[in-house]
């Protein structure tokens, strides 16, 4: 072991200079390197977004607190929301898709490698543009300079009259630029999956992660484009004096809401479908069983891809739509629960009777199942229009969507991190630290987001800078803030584990999990060309067929 790591160090020392390494990473078109760049970029912004969340939680720890100014608080929740959705969750999803898809479908790269690099750099510069607003977005004296209009930036708050300086310009341009990056990646993912599969891998034999990313990419094409269109309109309003969302000239503020949420709700599914994909890869391997109900899983995913396009106005029940509008969007919202519920039963069916191995990836996936179910249940509560009238824009809503995005999406992505870390780095992570991360994060997550529902039910609105004592919100806010600190510690352990294991971890070998998909058939980390010989597959679990020639899967599929 030690001699081997010494040999590796020696190779590193004799390898090209720092400048050469930097150039090779900046100019790379290799899907694996771009995937890792996406993931590192997202981790950086995860820390930044986490710091913003911590600042908000310190401010709300006690009533009448003066830790930050009201203006600063508005900037924090705007930047936190925008960062976490567009520059953490999306790049993480795209990073995993980039890294894994060609490996899982037996291809040597994405369909359009240069478009892939362009998409990454557009996303990266979008993120830099957003944060450049702290320097360049001069506003009113004392009013600060980062965007402070909220992550959905309702009109007319974004008009020149109410949003002086350039902070909102940075916000809209940043989302426009990164939106082009997202569309480029989606084009690439669809073309890769449809045109680059290895011989034998029909659509019905693809790993479910590929299926879910196919549906996700389709949704990005259809749903992120409206955001791009809306941002173009907002740019025209702000730079050229157009009147799209200018109520003074007859424009409509509600139109912006529709355009934003036509993007905004499918966006949740754009983030959660790849998380479903990660679940569908990890759960079978750690239950030692093939996935239960593969065709139903695919059908449910495609169904979500369509139904979730028709639910957006459930974010707008309090705007004052007609009774028909409210009923339509309440019913479609309930209908999404059906394919989603099917998926939960499929994962349970996979675990049922399996020899479950609770390694860290599986722990995160198990927690995902429970937490995603809870998030779905509060989602159904909020989808009922009358209940929504009571609780819209309260902390109940904040707790609900953090339950989805942290409790489900982030948990699945953590699971994915631990599961594919050996493939990406060639070394095993530290299991003890991984389990510590899991249990601390579960504790912190539930402290924060379980108890956040309660001040919402008690009437605490979201986005308030501080609150009066004596409303029964104090104790709950203290618990919520303590949970945030625990989560922060857990994340530090996670990052520490990654850094430590990258250099000191045990060598992983090709296939540390005894898994079944193609990425485990090649060395870890994979060579630049991925597959020396393009494989041919005959079933959904090609490596099972190789390991068990006496009982191959293709006899049953």
């Amino acid at each position, binding site marked *: 072991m030690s001699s081997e790591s010494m040999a590796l160090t020696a190779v590193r020392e004799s390898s090209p200079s720092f400048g050469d390494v930097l150039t090779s990473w900046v100019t790379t078109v290799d899907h694996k390197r771009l995937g890792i760049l996406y993931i590192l970029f997202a981790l950086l912004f995860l820390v930044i977004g986490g710091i913003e969340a911590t600042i908000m939680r310190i401010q709300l720890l006690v009533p009448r607190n003066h830790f930050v100014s009201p203006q600063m608080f508005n900037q924090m929740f705007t930047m936190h929301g925008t960062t976490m959705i567009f520059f953490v969750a999306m790049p993480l999803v795209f990073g995993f898709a980039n890294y894994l898809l060609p490996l899982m479908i037996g291809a040597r790269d994405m369909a359009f490698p240069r478009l892939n690099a362009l998409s990454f750099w557009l996303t990266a510069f979008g993120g830099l543009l957003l944060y450049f607003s702290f320097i360049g977005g001069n506003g009113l004296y004392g009013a600060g300079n980062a965007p402070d209009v909220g992550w959905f930036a309702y009109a007319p708050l974004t008009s020149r009259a109410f949003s002086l300086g350039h902070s909102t310009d940075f916000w809209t341009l940043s989302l426009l630029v990164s939106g082009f990056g997202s569309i480029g990646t989606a084009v690439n993912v669809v073309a890769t999956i*449809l045109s680059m599969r290895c011989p*034998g891998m029909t659509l019905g034999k693809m790993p479910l992660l590929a299926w879910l990313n196919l549906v996700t990419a389709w949704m990005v094409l259809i749903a992120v484009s*409206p955001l791009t269109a809306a941002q173009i309109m907002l740019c*025209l309003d702000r730079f050229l004096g157009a009147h*799209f969302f200018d109520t003074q*000239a007859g424009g409509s503020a509600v139109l912006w809401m529709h355009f934003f949420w036509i993007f905004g709700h499918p966006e949740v599914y754009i983030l959660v479908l790849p998380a479903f994909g990660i679940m569908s890869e990890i759960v079978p391997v750690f239950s030692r069983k093939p996935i239960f109900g593969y065709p139903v899983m695919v059908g449910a995913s495609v169904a979500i891809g369509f139904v979730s396009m028709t639910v957006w106005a459930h974010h707008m029940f309090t705007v004052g739509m007609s009774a028909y509008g409210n009923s339509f969007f309440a019913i479609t919202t309930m209908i999404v629960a059906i394919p989603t519920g099917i998926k939960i039963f499929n994962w349970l069916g996979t675990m049922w009777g399996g020899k479950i191995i609770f390694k860290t990836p599986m722990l995160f996936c198990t927690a995902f199942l429970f937490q995603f179910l809870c998030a779905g249940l509060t989602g159904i509560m909020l989808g009922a229009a009358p209940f929504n009238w009571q609780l819209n824009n309260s902390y109940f809503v904040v707790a609900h969507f953090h339950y989805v995005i942290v409790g489900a999406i982030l948990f699945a992505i953590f699971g994915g991190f631990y599961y594919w870390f050996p493939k990406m780095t060639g070394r095993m992570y530290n299991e003890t630290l991984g389990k510590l991360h899991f249990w601390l994060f579960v504790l912190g997550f539930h402290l924060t987001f379980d108890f956040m529902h309660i001040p919402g039910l008690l009437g605490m609105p979201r986005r308030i800078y501080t609150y009066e004592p004596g409303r029964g919100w104090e104790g709950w806010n203290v618990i919520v803030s303590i949970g945030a600190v625990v989560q922060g510690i857990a994340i530090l352990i996670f990052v520490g584990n990654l850094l430590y294991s990258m250099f000191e971890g045990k060598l992983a070998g090709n296939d540390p999990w005894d898994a079944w998909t193609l990425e485990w058939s090649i060395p870890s980390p994979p060579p630049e060309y991925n597959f020396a010989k393009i494989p041919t597959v005959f079933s959904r679990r090609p490596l099972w067929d190789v390991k068990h020639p006496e009982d*191959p899967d293709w006899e049953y599929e």
Partner: protein
Amino acid sequence: MSSTTIRPGSFETAWILPYKGHVGMWCLIAAESSIFTIFVVAYIYYIGKSLSGPTPREVLEIPIFATVCLLSSSLTIHAAVSALRKMKIMAFRLWWFITLALGAIFLIGTGREWHHLIYDKALTISTNLFGTTYYSLVGLHAFHVTIGLLGLTTILVLALRNLVRQEHIKNVDTFAMYWHFVDGVWVVVFTVVYIVGR
């Protein structure tokens, strides 16, 4: 191990997947359609909601000649691709040049229309909601025509330097898909702006 990959009835037939350029272009067209849909919805939603003049009926004239030029350019680009498929390089260049010329005529037509509206009718993007939605929707389309003209010119220059050969048929065909899409969008924009909106 290798014996495991032998399976009755396996790949005697060739393993053929769709061309990635076509798939990518279809995806781009889906995304672009989505963008245009939002602009068209905004246009239709704001018909008749301007608080001040001028109104579409007062100032808009139906651009029949430009429309005929743009729509016939779909036919000529199709003829160009067919010619390339049959290895008639000269015919390809000729049809391709005609396509480029027709597209350029359309864009000049849009430019003249805008000049007329701005200088004679005092309609700009900030005049009223009609100006806002008209210039953005027609402008978005004109932007796509401009991109198309750049692509057409690039391929024409390559063709004149004898660099477009039969093996590039798929690439040229993929670009033609984009041009057909730009023409198709004009049918929608024309209907909404000059027929429904007037």
